[in-house]
């Protein structure tokens, strides 16, 4: 495909992940100003503000695009706020990409920020039998249950072991050790993971990611604008896939208690469809990928993603892991940032944080966690209710 389908990433900025307990607007402004400074772009040049909503921070969170446009100073930019659970950041990026490719704007700010409550997420009070989220909690099915079901299925189908899952954690903890934006910077040994309490068999506490506060922002532009300011060689977004599932969706997904019935239509994998569309958009194949940032809500899920990304055949992910190929220095490093294991999830910011990491990797600015000669990076994530995304960045 021609390069006219690409947009440039001029700047990336984050507010460090943590449990800071402050207003999400503060984090977002820090990330946005960092991205603008990194890009060398004045705020008034930004013609489109594409916000990823947070639904746990009152009305300002639900209008995140406008909230940040105001916080940075109303200057007449067009605005959009997208919500798509864990894929919100990617939807916001997709909106900016379309706006730029449509010739509607040259430079856009894409931003997501969150302040998360402490403890496990739980539903609103009150009896709501029509809400699948209420039903599943009522009978005792929490978020980790779903990750655990996928993990156990891998063990049964492919022979993955608890030691494999622990090895993902050990690898990601090592990757994130020196990442200044990571919340957890602590090395783990496999026996420490094994010794952590079981949350949802077969997953231990150390297999499952926490929730965090954090913010990430990108400045993206047309290639023409990038050239004009002397950044023709900036990394590029080559694809943003935000496809929905195809009926019948084969995998039971949060918050549902059942899958679609495949009586009248074939069962299909949603997760695998996400990168497939991204590869198609970018005209790039899995063999071209140098580095991947995937949504390790659990350690085992990282292995599912590797296969959905076609970085190896179905069932082969643990082999790559065991061979050290997914570590920095291996054939295809996965989560060099440290992943969700080191960050904890800040929902609207997380998909953008993945793209920030790829930007720094492709620029060669990732310091101790640099993947040598990274040329093409891919992200993957999935959220509730048929949301997910995969982004391809190249240079």
């Amino acid at each position, binding site marked *: 495909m021609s390069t006219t389908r690409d947009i440039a990433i001029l700047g990336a900025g984050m507010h460090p992940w943590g449990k800071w307990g402050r207003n999400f607007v503060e984090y977002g402004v820090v990330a946005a100003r960092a991205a603008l400074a990194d890009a060398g772009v004045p705020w008034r040049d930004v013609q489109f503000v594409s916000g990823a909503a947070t639904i746990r921070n009152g009305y300002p969170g639900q209008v995140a695009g406008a909230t940040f446009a105001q916080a940075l100073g109303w200057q007449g930019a067009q605005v959009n706020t997208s919500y798509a659970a864990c894929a919100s950041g990617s939807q916001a990026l997709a909106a900016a990409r379309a706006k730029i490719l449509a010739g509607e704007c040259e430079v856009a700010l894409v931003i997501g920020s969150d302040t998360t409550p402490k403890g*496990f997420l*739980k*539903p609103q*009070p009150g*009896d709501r*039998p*029509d809400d*699948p989220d*209420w*039903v*599943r*909690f*009522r*009978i*005792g*099915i*929490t978020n*980790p*249950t779903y990750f*655990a*079901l*996928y993990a*156990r*299925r891998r063990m*049964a*189908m492919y022979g993955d072991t608890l030691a494999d899952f622990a090895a993902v954690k050990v690898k990601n903890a090592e990757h994130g050790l020196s990442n200044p934006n990571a919340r957890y910077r602590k090395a783990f040994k496999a026996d420490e993971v094994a010794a952590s*309490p*079981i*949350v*949802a*068999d*077969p*997953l231990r506490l150390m297999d499952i990611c926490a929730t965090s506060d954090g913010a990430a922002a990108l400045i993206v532009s047309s290639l023409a604008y990038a050239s004009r300011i002397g950044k023709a060689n900036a990394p590029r977004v080559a694809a943003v896939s935000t496809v929905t599932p195809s*009926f*019948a969706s084969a995998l*039971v997904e949060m918050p549902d*208690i*059942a*899958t*679609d*019935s*495949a*009586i*009248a*239509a074939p*069962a299909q994998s949603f997760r695998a469809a996400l990168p497939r569309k991204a590869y198609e958009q970018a005209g790039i194949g899995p063999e071209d990928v140098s580095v991947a940032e995937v949504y390790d809500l659990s350690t085992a899920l990282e292995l599912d993603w590797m296969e959905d990304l076609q970085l190896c055949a179905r069932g082969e992910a643990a082999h790559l892991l065991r061979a050290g190929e997914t570590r920095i220095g291996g054939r295809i490093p996965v989560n060099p940032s440290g992943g969700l294991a080191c960050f904890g999830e800040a929902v609207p910011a997380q998909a953008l944080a993945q793209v920030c990491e790829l930007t720094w990797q492709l620029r060669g600015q990732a310091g101790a966690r640099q993947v040598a000669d990274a040329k093409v990076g891919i992200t993957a994530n999935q959220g509730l209710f048929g949301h997910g995304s995969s982004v391809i960045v190249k240079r």
Partner: protein
Amino acid sequence: MNDTVAGCNAQPFLEGWFTLDAERPQLLGNRCVACGTVYFPKLKSGYCRNPDCDGERFEETPLSRSGALWSYSNAAYQPPEPYAQVDKDAFRPFAIAAVELDKEKMIVLGAVVAGVGVEQLKVGMTMELKLGALADGKLTWMWAPAGAQA
């Protein structure tokens, strides 16, 4: 949790989601008259979710009582509300099953009856539907290894 339900006056936690036959309970879904797709929980919007079907008529249908264990897990800690809460010390971990129904070609989740832990489960084994009580005494559907005494 308590799965001794026969003959008691326990109420289901949701009306119309499953039959209360203590021996042979069944989940209650509905089926698109046009394309045969089965929904559980029942589809209430009135419009079939099969993209190639414009069906707007649905009839109630009981689901198969047994299927193959697709995967399983457990709740090692007490889930938050609306799960009925018990005293912290009284909480016993319980297993959770994802069971694939052959006829309906779908996977349905549910707790596993008390007394059956993850160590007694194996992917692929046959599971069947039972009733069991939540901590507040309300009945729900539960999965049990086929042939086990509930």
